[in-house]
């Protein structure tokens, strides 16, 4: 049986990473359910925002 191979593009890999890391951060870093959800969403926004900022920064540096 052939091994399963999944290919993700860069942004998809970053988005998947951000999603699951944010879920774990939200659960482990806050006490109440509401705070967990809010912090998880905040972490997700920071992860993706950081990816976008870093990507554009690299584009500027390359020019």
């Amino acid at each position, binding site marked *: 049986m052939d091994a399963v*191979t999944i290919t993700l593009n860069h942004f998809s890999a970053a988005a998947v990473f951000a999603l699951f890391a944010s879920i*774990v951060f939200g659960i482990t870093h806050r006490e109440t359910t509401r705070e967990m959800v809010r912090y998880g969403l905040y972490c997700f926004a920071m992860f993706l925002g950081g990816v976008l900022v870093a990507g554009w920064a690299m584009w500027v540096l390359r020019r």
Partner: protein
Amino acid sequence: MANSTTDKKVLPAEPVSMMAVVAPAVGWLIPGCGHIIQKRWIRGGLLFISIATLFLLGLAMQGRIYRANGGDILDILGFIGDVGAGGFYIITLAMDWGQGAIAFATADYGTKFMIVAGLLNFIAVADAYHIAIGKKQ
């Protein structure tokens, strides 16, 4: 006679509960289970899904698993990250998966996914311990 100023009230040490040992151990072996055995069903389930998905995606992306055979410092750090995934790491080693594939550009992402899954499980284990000792609800 004046009271000694050096007298200090010594509080008895809290006995280590069985759950404070079992929950982190089980949580390391099966991600999220440290929470599940303490009846935090949703948290444990989400932790399991998140960490397992990251690790399995990393394997599916042809990522490389690090082994405990020394090597340079980056290999050692990679091993420390991977071993955090507990049972997933043990099964991967036993099945001889995670050989890595230089030919695939996303294989490097897969390697990092597996390391991060292990590191996130370390955080989850610490959280399970804090719940067990009553530091967190």
